[in-house]
């Protein structure tokens, strides 16, 4: 029988929630890495027992953890005493150093909050995206925004500097959460194509495996930049894609829900009848590529759900027409947020939808959003949710 494993990153540790395919009874494992911020954890689609974790701390910096047994045990890749060719211990797994070769070096500053230029400084890994083909290859989206890659299971990391160095970097600026590369989407039909998104720079695409990049933000409109329709500078919060239609992208921007049907070259707004089109998460049903989900948030100044009601909105038409999903969710006095990487779907026949809140609840729906139940109610603030569907 199928099983699901929900990987939850929180402000104070990681949790693994497991259930059979009915998704009614859950086992909770954790906290793993207690006391640390777990920005993201994600399993390899090739080897589901291989799970990568971004463990981070304001005191101690960045750690990468890895499990090869589905989260039962963990190792810090390269954290053991191994002597490298220079005679020094390796200890490379938490080493994220910007490329200063010709591709990265010319671009050394980005825009600071006050509009002045500011040097790139590594802070943390926001998102880990394992390769679709090789469990030892994984991408990391980091703050300050850049894309790194490991080809040795997280032992060592190299920047793909063509993104940071492609030319528009001085116009990138931090959003409220920092200048983070938070979304990495690998195209299952085109191995050379990767989409990424940065807050606040926008969405970018490579068609050659990360060597060269181009901004894909035509159609976005953002009032907080001098030219609202500029090529870069947009605060994209999250992007989602259905694997069967990799040219169609859905975006939750700071304000506005958008879609593109030409691999990001052009975007149109599909906010339609949403009560507010500010938000962070967006995701796509596992079997219906035109069914999408968002959680509207009141505003950029009030990061909690609208009207004190926790409502997921579903569109079965790829946007514009939305219905609120409320059964099982609190409909009064609720003031939580749902952060950008905190929604995921499983791929069971009846698609399961999951999301976590800043109030520490993780909600699951085993019927594509028609009804919801809390798996857990009292975790630390949830930063990320990923789901593995296991046979």
């Amino acid at each position: 029988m199928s099983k699901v494993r929900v990987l939850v990153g929180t402000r104070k540790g990681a949790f693994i929630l497991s259930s059979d395919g009915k998704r009614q009874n859950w086992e909770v494992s954790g906290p793993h890495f207690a006391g640390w911020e777990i920005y993201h954890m994600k399993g390899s689609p090739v080897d589901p027992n291989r799970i990568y974790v971004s463990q981070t701390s304001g005191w101690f910096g960045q750690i990468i953890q890895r499990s090869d047994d589905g989260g039962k045990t963990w190792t810090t890749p390269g954290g053991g005493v191994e002597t490298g060719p220079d005679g020094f211990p390796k200890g490379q797994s938490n080493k994220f150093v910007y490329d200063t070769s010709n591709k990265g070096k010319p671009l050394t500053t980005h825009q600071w909050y006050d509009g002045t230029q500011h040097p790139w400084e590594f802070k943390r890994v926001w998102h880990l995206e394992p390769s679709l083909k090789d469990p030892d290859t994984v991408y990391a989206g980091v703050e300050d925004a850049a894309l790194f890659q490991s080809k040795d299971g997280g032992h060592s990391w190299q920047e793909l500097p063509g993104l940071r160095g492609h030319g528009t970097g001085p116009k990138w600026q931090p959003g409220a959460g920092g200048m983070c590369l938070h979304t990495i989407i690998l195209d299952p039909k085109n191995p050379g194509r990767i989409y990424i998104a940065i807050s606040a720079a926008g969405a970018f695409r490579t068609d050659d495996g990360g060597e060269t990049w181009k901004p894909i933000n035509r159609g976005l409109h953002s009032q907080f930049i001098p030219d609202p329709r500029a090529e870069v500078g947009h605060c994209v919060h999250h992007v989602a894609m259905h694997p069967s239609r990799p040219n169609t992208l859905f975006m939750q921007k700071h304000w506005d829900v958008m879609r593109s049907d030409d691999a990001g070259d052009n975007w149109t707004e599909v906010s339609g009848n949403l009560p507010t089109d500010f938000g962070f998460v967006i995701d796509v049903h596992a079997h219906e590529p035109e069914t999408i989900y968002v959680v509207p948030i009141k505003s950029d100044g009030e990061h909690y759900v609208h009207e004190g009601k926790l409502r997921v909105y579903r569109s079965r038409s790829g946007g514009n027409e939305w219905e609120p999903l409320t059964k099982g969710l609190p409909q009064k006095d609720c003031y939580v947020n749902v952060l950008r990487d905190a929604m995921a779907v499983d791929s069971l026949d009846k698609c399961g939808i999951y999301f976590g809140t800043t109030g520490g609840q993780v909600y699951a729906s085993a019927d594509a959003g028609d009804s919801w139940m809390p798996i857990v109610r009292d975790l630390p603030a949830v930063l990320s949710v990923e789901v593995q569907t296991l046979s």
Partner: protein
Amino acid sequence: MIRVELPSHLRTLAKVNGEVRLEVAAPVTQRAVLDALEAQYPALRGTIRDHVTLKRRAFLRFFACEEDLSHESPDTPLPEAVASGKEPFLIIGAVAGG
């Protein structure tokens, strides 16, 4: 033998309990102690000082013998009591950190 006390999160990361003991050749400096610590526990690389610049991370402090040594040069010899193992070298997480 140099004695080093780590914050609890770093003890967990390094998989150690209690004080760490290190062999450090004279002169015993902050740099020599941290080099030896990272050599023995590579998982700590980057958690106490920056990978590249080797500067102390902003929210960590170094204390010994009831003195704040955080702003001493990394090449200044540590107090004799630390070098002799009588007193530990303390790596402390600042209250404001995280």
